[in-house]
């Protein structure tokens, strides 16, 4: 069985490099730098999981999450939101829109690996 495919979405190249370093040996990774590109990539590539930042230019993570849940091709893909701000309202909104889980920045390697593995099983 091939590796599972994860779509990493973040406007920060630093975070993308870090996530690639942490997940690259176990998963196939594809990236997008904003919500719009993430939506297009998710529809086209149908990843097994999406790891998406909230604060992004052009289309933020919350809008992208809303759109992904509206499209048939992406509505069942588990989505983990990555957020700098841990305010409960934002997290609640993400859960209401159908996100599967969330993690806070700075990203902790063990937490990231655990949540990704849990949501892929």
């Amino acid at each position, binding site marked *: 069985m091939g590796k599972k495919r994860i779509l990493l979405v973040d406007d920060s*190249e*630093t*975070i993308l490099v*870090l996530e690639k370093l942490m997940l690259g040996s176990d998963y196939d990774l594809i990236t997008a730098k904003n919500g719009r590109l993430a939506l297009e990539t998710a529809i086209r590539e149908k990843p097994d999981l999406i790891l998406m930042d909230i604060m992004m230019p052009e289309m933020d993570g919350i809008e992208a999450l809303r759109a992904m849940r509206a499209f048939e091709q992406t509505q069942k893909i588990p989505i983990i939101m990555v957020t*700098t701000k841990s305010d409960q309202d934002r997290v609640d909104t993400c859960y209401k829109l159908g996100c599967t889980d969330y993690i*806070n*920045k*700075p990203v*902790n390697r063990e937490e990231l690996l655990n949540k990704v593995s849990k949501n892929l099983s």
Partner: protein
Amino acid sequence: MDKQPNDKSDLLIRLFEEGKNFTQEVLKENERLRLLLAAQKADSEIKKKEDTLPENLARLEMENRRYKEELDQLRRTLDDVEAENKEFAQKYVTVEQQNSSLANLYVASYRLHSTLDFKEVINIIKEIVINLIGSEMFGLFLKDEKLNELSLATQEGLDDKKCRPVLIGFGRAGEAAEKGDAYYAARKESEDDPIACIPLKIHDRLLGLIVIYQLLKQKDGFAQVDFELFNLLADHAATAIYCSQLHTQAERKLSTMQNLLELLKSEK
């Protein structure tokens, strides 16, 4: 004459009956003897067992002692294995933390030296402080050689007051810049006080200063990896800034020279 056959017949019948009775008695006696033999055999076995009982008891006690010793040995081995297991678990946690720290340090270093564009370097430093250190209120100040002060290059979440230039030698940030040593507050005394000031230096030459006022809500304080990141930033961010400034100057000079050459060519 007629009586003789009857007498013979009675005699025979009597003889048969006597024979039958005798046989029955023999069978009874046989049964009695068989039972007696069985009882004697049982007695003999009991006696035999009684004779070997102390010997058996001694053997069983010896076996019991041996099993106890084996059990103690197994318990000691189990304790050793459990201790080893705990040690491995602890080592695993340490290795995981080191991996995580190394990943952060590698990414910071990789990103800082991935470009010669000055604006991009400043943006990368900002990304590192937000995403790897986890600060939501900080400023990056660069030294103005003419004014001998540090002016704001980029910031996140700062009010106007905190965006003012840092005067070298004045205030927590100014003192850290003057001494060239990083400053970390054990606890924040007031909203205006920074919790960390990290001078960016190449050898003893000060190029800039990162002043951190607040961490993200989910962070209780600095972790070991944060101090390692600060050390890395102090050197590598300074080098990256310096290189990008030099590169920008060189590009500008090159452009001027090219324009000048083109002008000279056109005048010919």
